[in-house]
Structure formats: C-alpha cells, structure tokens
C-alpha cells in the first residue's frame, strides 16, 4: 500500500499512491491508514483534520468506499477525515451513495503555505 503523508499546520495530508481503492486492497488500505495516522494527543476542542488526497486515485468501488468510511469511523472523534481531489469516477460513487454529504471535500489537497485550497 503506497501512502505518503506530510503535516501542514494542524492537518495531516495523506496522499494515496494507488490508482484504485477496490475490494482487492480495501483491507490493506484500512490497515495502512491506521498505521499512517499517529494517535492524536487526546481530543482537543477541535478535531485535528486528516486530509486524504485522492488526486492519483481513478477508481473506488463499494468496498473501497466502505473502507474510507471505516477509516473516518476509527479516526473519530480525535481526528476528522476529509477528502481532496476526487477524480470524476470517484466523485460519482460518493455522490450516488450520498456519501459526499458526510465528508468535507476539497477540490485539491492543501499545499504548503495555503492551508485550504477548496
């Protein structure tokens, strides 16, 4: 599982380096996300954002979607999962399942200096 992360301010940006999040790698994806996110030092007044940069992902199936939701669930409440850079086929599956209402979705992942590019 190819994930790379960098910290920008309060946010941890995790870029997925796989072209697909599908049933073949859904479980590995969950495990790798668990390993990639350090435990937050107790929930503060504001949950710390983890932004999943999906710019390189061109396909998510229902297992992949379920895995992303599972990640959101185990990160809460200390961390809140947000998404960035949904490609057309990925955006469609979030929209059709109404999961686009559950996540904050950014047009692109923040880059150094600009905290939020959405």
């Amino acid at each position: 599982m190819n994930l790379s992360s960098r910290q920008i301010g309060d946010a941890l940006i995790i870029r997925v380096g796989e072209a697909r999040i599908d049933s073949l790698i859904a479980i590995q994806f969950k495990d790798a996300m668990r390993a990639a996110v350090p435990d937050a030092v107790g929930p503060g007044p504001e949950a710390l954002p983890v932004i999943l940069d999906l710019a390189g992902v061109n396909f998510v199936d229902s297992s992949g979607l379920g895995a992303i939701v599972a990640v959101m669930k185990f990160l809460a409440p200390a961390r809140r999962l947000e998404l960035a850079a949904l490609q057309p086929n990925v955006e469609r599956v979030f929209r059709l399942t109404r999961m686009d209402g559950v996540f904050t979705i950014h047009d692109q992942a923040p880059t150094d200096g600009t905290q939020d590019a959405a």
Partner: protein
Amino acid sequence: MPRETEAATVTEQQVDRDHDGPFAVTLRSTSEAVRRTLALITEHFAGSVPDAELGMLEMVLAETLNNVVEHAMSGNARGQVKLRILCRNGGLDCTILDNGLPMPDGEPPRTTLPEIGRMIDDLPEGGFGWSLIRMHVRDLEYRRQDGINVLRFLLPLTEMADT
C-alpha cells in the same frame, strides 16, 4: 469442463461470431482477476464509449463481479465466471455466468441505499453494491439454471459508437 467433441476446424461462422462478436472473458473468482478483467474492458471500449459511461460500466461490472467473488463463491478462488458484453438495444448488454451459490431470495437484492444518519459510528460501510447496480442498469434478469447463476442487464448508452 467436459472435453469438447467439435470438429477440428474453425468454421467461417465461428470466425465471424468470434471476431466481430461480443467482448468475452473467462475468469476465476478472485479480486485480482476482477481487476484484470475491468482493465481489459475499459481498454476494449475506450474510444467507442464516452468516458463517463465507461466509468459507469466499470462500476457496475466491478460491483457485480465482486459480488460473485465475495458472496456467490464466498472466497473460493476456483469458481469460474464468464462475462460477455454485446453492443445492442442502445447500450451494452452484459451477461455474467458463475457456478457459485444462488442469490439468497432467488433474485438480486432489492436493497435501497443504506441510511446515512448523523452519528459517525453508525455510518454504513457496505450494502451499496446492488443499489449502485440498479441505479444504472435496465432490464435486469436473473435466473438459476443447471447450477449456474445467469445475470443479465443492459447499461443504456446515450450515444453508441460502433466498437
């Protein structure tokens, strides 16, 4: 697979049917095989089916084929799956055959999208598959025949180029 006893020569009709005929693929019931199959299909229809509709085709086939792998075969990697796609009736006419367990109620689930409430802990992690399939396809038919599941549907296309 029973040994075949056909004559040893490929007839003209067979060539016609085979070459100009449908997209066809035989695969084992594994997630890797599903991935490879989807890649062959998107490559096959790229250029003749618009990108957005190709994305829908890929999604619908991913959901149906992964259901076979996960539910009909419940993880047994030696199951045999056949998929055939014809361009007709204004869309892509897909037939999937597998030798796994039948659908639980003798028909594909009629589940609607899982409810999304306000509590993060209650968010659904599954159960999207058949809703996604049913949103996109028409003329869905399922039957069990001689121990084989036969699933068939049409994915309508707005505009169909010859492939």
